[in-house]
């Protein structure tokens, strides 16, 4: 059972590495905003004209005068205790602001991920199996078009055609209740996932084509295995590695793109919150969101790394030998 112990050890190493990555990024995130132009104290007193004394008092109160390491330490200490500070803009704790916005964004990303997994991977499989036919060429054309359409363009087209002209979907807002929310999230999810879907389709297609050429596929067919079973058990199964890797990268990348799509569809979510808080110099919220996005990246990629040995047992052997 040494292999189990080796696997546990390598998983532990991954988790430690994940913690270190998060610590380093927290420092980068904090310091980059520290260096950013604009004075948060000036924002806090916006609309009024405070005396220099009042301004200094505010700076003192919010700790803007403390040296950088002290401020970082205070912030990190808070973050580690689940306290991301207070939002100047909303006069609430950052955590509660984020918490109220997170479900909408998670729904958006969730639906998009589902679309990518079903439509993107599905189209890739069809594209590989129907290569050289009209269907196969149609898939390739869709991939090229899809990859070339930025999400804000997709958003505008979807809103005007499916939303305004045909009236099938609402064009703005989040909706209330699960079904209504789902209805509201369809167009944003399509806009968000078009580019990513094209990418996943392309990766799936080429991974499938690679695997279709393998000798063991011909061998399985020569043993009288039904073609469908061979495609499922030997072609798609072996192509999963690149597909899962690219899906993992994209899911975390989608969090960033929600900023564009949520703004375009007037949705209230973490993405639109980020845009708003950058505009208003609400640094505490921006820091928390950026850290959240980085954490999502790290967590998803670590998850992919941990899943990989299940997909390809040869990786397990190499990991044990390391």
């Amino acid at each position: 059972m040494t292999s189990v112990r080796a696997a546990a050890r390598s998983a532990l190493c991954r988790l430690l590495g994940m913690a270190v990555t998060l610590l380093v990024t927290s420092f980068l995130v904090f310091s980059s905003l520290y260096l950013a132009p604009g004075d948060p104290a000036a924002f806090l007193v916006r609309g009024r004209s405070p005396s220099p004394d009042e301004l200094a008092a505010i700076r003192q109160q919010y700790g803007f005068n403390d040296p950088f390491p002290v401020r970082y330490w205070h912030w990190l200490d808070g973050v580690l205790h689940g306290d991301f500070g207070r939002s100047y803009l909303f006069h609430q704790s950052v955590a509660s602001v984020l918490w109220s916005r997170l479900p909408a964004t998670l729904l958006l990303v969730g639906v998009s991920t589902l679309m990518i997994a079903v439509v993107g991977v599905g189209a890739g499989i069809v594209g590989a199996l129907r290569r050289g036919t009209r269907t196969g060429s149609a898939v390739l054309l869709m991939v090229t078009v899809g990859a070339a359409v930025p999400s804000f363009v997709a958003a505008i087209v979807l809103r005007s055609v499916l939303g305004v002209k045909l009236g099938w979907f609402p064009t703005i807002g989040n909706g209330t209740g699960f079904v209504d929310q789902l209805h509201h999230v369809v167009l944003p999810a399509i806009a968000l996932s078009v580019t990513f879907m094209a990418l996943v389709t392309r990766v799936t297609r080429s991974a499938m084509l690679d695997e279709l050429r393998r000798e063991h596929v011909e061998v399985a067919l020569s043993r009288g295995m039904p073609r469908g079973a061979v495609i499922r058990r030997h072609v798609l199964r072996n192509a999963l590695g690149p597909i899962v890797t690219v899906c993992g990268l994209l899911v975390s990348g989608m969090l960033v793109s929600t900023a564009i799509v949520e703004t375009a569809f007037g949705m209230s979510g973490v993405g639109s919150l980020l845009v708003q808080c950058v505009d208003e110099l609400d640094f505490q919220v921006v820091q928390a969101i950026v850290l959240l996005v980085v954490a999502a990246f790290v967590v998803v990629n670590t998850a992919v790394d941990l899943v990989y040995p299940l997909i390809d047992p040869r990786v397990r052997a190499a990991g044990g030998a390391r």
Partner: protein
Amino acid sequence: MPLLSYEDLSVLLPGMARPVLDGVSLSVAAGEAVALVGESGSGKSVTARAALGLLPPGATTAGQVTVDGCALIGADPATVRAVRTGKASMIFQDPRAAINPVRRIGDFLTEALRLVDGRGRAEAEARALDLLAAVGLPDPPRHLRQYPHQLSGGMLQRVMIAGALTADPRLLLCDEPTTALDVTTQAEIMAVLRALQQDRGLGLLLITHDLDLAAAGCDRIYVMYAGRIVETATAAELLATPRHPYTAGLLGSSPPLHGAPERLTPIPGVPMGLLESAPGCAFAARCRFARPGLCDQSPPELAPVGERLVACHLADSILSEVDR
């Protein structure tokens, strides 16, 4: 009616100057071990694959291949499946490439039983355990749970053989089954194959480039050159007195197993590629006996010379001079 028979099988690929296979006739009876010998590119693998209905994409064919009464050329998919799932199995050259690396050995051995025959997991695994023991693997229950990369090449080729036997075929097609293995393992694998073939009364078609290996393991030998059978005889006869210059050349270019090693005489030139063709005998350009005006005019037919068949214009006259 032999178990496996090729009747005048020709296979043409688009854009090629000559057929991959040109009028191949060959037969294997039940319980008989037959070898098909030739250099790389001679068409021997294409021949073997045709017996499972596996033809190169875009190929046009003439002639027929029959396995246990099932004609394969132009057959419907159901007939092809029937041959693949119960009549004939193939053992491939490189087990590392032929077995899915990310699935367990047990999966490779049981998938056909479970998905094609619809047997239960327990029953299929019991059969797999029996077969792993039959091919001489030390620890069948453990091997079932192992992945291909955890076994050596020789062990994996035994797994491949076990996999070929799951469907209880009557015919084993072995496509260079020992070429990817080291020499000591080669002998073991051949011994396993030979024992299984005799115990179960299987027909066996061994594809190889090694005439000595063929002679050691098989009853009859066909020699193939550029898509044609050029000589066929019993193994003993062929090795003792090769009648076709190409067979003689093959023997002369491999070291003798007994006696003092002599200097090897390789066959001059290279095998004819698929983009070349010759109006006469395909071997004439490399043949030291070739007679201009005869050998380069028309291709020789396979004709009886004594007990055997030889495709050479000079088979009757000059070839009695050929010896090892």
